[in-house]
């Protein structure tokens, strides 16, 4: 399966997909602080990071070309020996196959565009938040993320994949908590760092599943290397494979934000918008989809596990889509939309439609990054409008309020005229997401629906409903944000973003339009399918089904029309309630996220906090500290010290001996002092007697 590396190919460059971003990271880490204090340095910091990511993209393109020359055959590029314990040997090796190269292209490609966008975005963001020197930290973390993501997708073993998996989790944590000392409205608070912690803990639960799967692999297969694991799995009992695949699924639900661990992703919107676009929409959250596609050979062995994966994906897709309808924060809508779209991908790879899942992963990376970045542009536009007002409203204070939320769609409206470029970009992203012909999302979503209709009617119905809600919430967002009249003075004074922000968006918009060409459902156009066939195995290319495609497109168009009827026909003014409120409890559920966070709080977090509190106050404080430590340990020690050591050993033993010695000496001397009676004649007598005694002895002996 592995061919020899031919000359003229670029596989020797493979490690550089990791090392280029690493170099960029180090440059900014070492020189960034110095650069930021120069007037021209800030842009340089951003461009160094962007070039580092761009270099990784160039390497990825060269690898794709080499792979094409190599007829798609997998190449393994060993770099270093990592672990050798007993018969376990793990190398740091890069696996260059069509699947990993596809991921590399997405990560580095979309990543580079978002890096460039972030040059402009963070320039304004750090100034609104009041800490321009944090600019460097952002790009260091961003490059670190690219490093970790590249390790994740290029590793040749589950252990290397896990290293990257944890690395991107760390970067996610660091970047969600980028403004750790404030909340999303820049008020002093720990809300952002709480969101980061929530993401980290939820991912940790998922990682436990991944770890358990890894332990099972090591215990039964004695290897983490993909080929060896797949080889061994063919002879393994199905129960074992089910356990491994389901444990992996737990990891996927954490990283890819599926039910039941999706709750961290909406909170992760606390991070700056480029972070939401790169990490929490385009790349990191798709790592779970990649993991399942990578483990295709395991999942295809056990249809039961596949069914569970597909159902979780489909239910998540619908569930998250309903919540997105009830949100007011422009990024929260997109966050739930991301969860929903990840559900589509997970459902696809769960049904064995790995190509469809990866196809949707790629197109989703394009249009969701586009949507998030456009939303960031909208937020910045409102922020600019707000600052404009603040500078021009001396004397009349009615514009000033305590808190202005530039991400709240109820503050927007009518932005079509103020921000035309962003408007058109957003519409392109929305149409692609809603699955309107001929945008990229249409082709990829349609392929998933087609597979679903063939494999599982339940999944098909769930996903179709999810697609309905998707079109609705995107329509709602467009009408609320860009149409109607401004509901806030800041929206009325919003300003369009600079080219550094809009140009990467245009590239992404172009990709969102033509991205479907990667895998058109016509004979001879299944490029991505043939490309991935080398890695995920033969996948039957489905022809275009006009019924499925027509139905989904018609549904989307009708839904957008419905959303216009609800939101666009009579735009609600400032302070008016949402028209959907008439739906009663359904609207309440959607607006309050079906109370899942509250449920988790009641079922898991509060008992846990109470248990922790109990452990701290009763077990730790009262039992261990007050009783065991203070009473038992300290008491015993004090008793031993007072009674044993002081009273007996010291007072009676040592003091007693010393006193006895003194007393003894006194008595002896009191007795013997009498010899010294001061009478010279007595001394003379004793001398005489002594002499007589000694002489007598000497003479008589």
């Amino acid at each position: 399966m592995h061919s020899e590396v031919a000359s003229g190919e670029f596989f020797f460059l493979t490690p550089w997909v990791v090392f280029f971003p690493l170099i960029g990271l180090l440059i900014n880490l070492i020189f960034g602080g110095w650069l930021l204090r120069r007037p021209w340095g800030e842009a340089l910091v951003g461009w160094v990071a962007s070039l580092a990511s761009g270099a990784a993209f160039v390497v990825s393109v060269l690898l794709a070309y080499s792979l094409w020359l190599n007829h798609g055959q997998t190449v393994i590029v060993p770099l270093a020996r990592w672990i050798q314990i007993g018969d376990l040997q793990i190398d740091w090796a890069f696996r260059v196959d069509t699947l990993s190269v596809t991921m590399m292209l997405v990560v580095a490609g979309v990543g580079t565009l978002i890096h460039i966008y972030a040059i402009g975005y963070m320039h304004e963001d750090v100034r609104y938040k009041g800490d321009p020197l944090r600019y460097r930290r952002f790009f260091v973390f961003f490059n670190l993320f690219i490093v970790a993501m590249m390790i994740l997708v290029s590793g040749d073993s589950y252990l290397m994949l896990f290293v990257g998996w944890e690395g991107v989790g760390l970067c996610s944590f660091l970047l969600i908590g980028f403004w750790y000392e404030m909340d999303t409205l820049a008020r002093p608070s720990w809300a952002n760092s709480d969101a980061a912690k929530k993401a980290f803990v939820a991912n940790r639960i998922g990682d436990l599943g991944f770890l358990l799967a890894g332990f099972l692999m090591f215990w039964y297969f004695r290897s983490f290397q993909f080929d060896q694991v797949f080889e061994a799995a063919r002879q393994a009992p199905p129960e074992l494979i089910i356990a491994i695949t389901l444990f992996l699924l737990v990891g996927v639900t954490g990283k890819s934000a599926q039910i039941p661990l999706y709750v961290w992703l909406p909170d992760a919107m606390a991070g700056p918008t480029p972070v939401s676009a790169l990490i929490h929409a385009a790349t990191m959250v798709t790592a779970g989809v990649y993991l399942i596609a990578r483990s295709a050979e395991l999942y295809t062995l056990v249809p039961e596990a596949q069914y569970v994966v597909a159902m979780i994906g489909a239910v998540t897709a619908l569930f998250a889509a309903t919540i997105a309808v009830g949100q007011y924060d422009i990024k929260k809508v997109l966050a739930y939309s991301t969860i929903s779209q990840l559900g589509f991908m997970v459902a696809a790879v769960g049904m064995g439609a790995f190509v469809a899942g990866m196809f949707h992963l790629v197109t989703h990376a394009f249009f969701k990054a586009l949507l998030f970045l456009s939303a960031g542009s909208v937020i910045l536009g409102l922020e600019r409008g707000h600052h404009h007002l603040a500078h021009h409203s001396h004397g009349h204070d009615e514009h000033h309020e305590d808190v202005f939320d530039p991400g709240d769609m109820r503050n927007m409206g009518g932005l079509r005229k103020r921000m035309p470029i962003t408007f058109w970009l957003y519409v392109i992203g929305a149409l692609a997401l809603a699955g309107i012909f001929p945008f990229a999302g249409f082709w990829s979503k349609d392929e998933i629906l087609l597979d679903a209709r063939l494999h599982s009617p339940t999944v098909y119905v769930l996903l179709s409903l999810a697609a309905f809600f998707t079109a609705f919430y995107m329509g709602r967002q467009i009408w609320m944000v860009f149409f109607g009249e401004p509901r806030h003075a800041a929206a009325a004074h919003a300003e369009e973003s600079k080219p550094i922000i809009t140009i990467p968006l245009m590239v992404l918009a172009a990709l969102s339009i033509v991205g479907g060409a990667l895998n058109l459902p016509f004979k001879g156009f299944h490029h991505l399918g043939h490309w991935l066939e080398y890695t995920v195995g033969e996948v039957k290319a489905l022809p275009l089904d006009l019924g499925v495609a027509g139905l989904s497109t018609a549904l989307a168009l009708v839904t957008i029309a419905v959303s216009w009827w609800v939101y666009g026909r009579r735009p609600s003014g400032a302070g008016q309630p949402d028209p959907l409120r008439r739906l009663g409890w359904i609207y309440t559920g959607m607006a309050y996220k079906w109370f899942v966070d509250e449920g988790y709080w009641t079922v898991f977090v509060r008992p846990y906090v109470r248990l922790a509190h109990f452990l701290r106050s009763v077990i730790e404080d009262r039992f261990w500290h007050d009783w065991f430590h203070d009473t038992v340990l300290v008491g015993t020690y004090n008793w031993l010290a007072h009674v044993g050591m002081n009273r007996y050993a010291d007072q009676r033993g040592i003091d007693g001996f010393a006193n006895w010695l003194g007393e003894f000496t006194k008595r002896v001397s009191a007795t013997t002092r009498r010899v010294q009676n001061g009478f010279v004649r007595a001394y003379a007598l004793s001398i005489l007697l002594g002499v007589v005694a000694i002489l007598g002895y000497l003479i008589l002996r």
Partner: protein
Amino acid sequence: MIPLNYYVLLSGILFTIGALGVLLRRNPLVMFMSIELMLNSANLAMVAFSSALQQLNGQIFVFFVIAVAAAEVAVGLALIVQIFKTKHTINVDEMSNLRG
């Protein structure tokens, strides 16, 4: 010729008288005289043995003893004068400052 035993016996008697004088008397002058008596009894014995054994060692030794005795008396009398000046008595039993 007087036998050697007689000399030795006389020497012993004189020594005993001297020793008893040192032990029993309280006047330091008398005690010094008793000491002289003991020293001279020893001198007598040494001279007697020297004559009997026909060797000069004993006689030479006696000269030394006489010289030492003279020096001792000189020191001793000076001490007694000083003691009398401070204590206005020379009773040795009164000189018990070193009693323990």
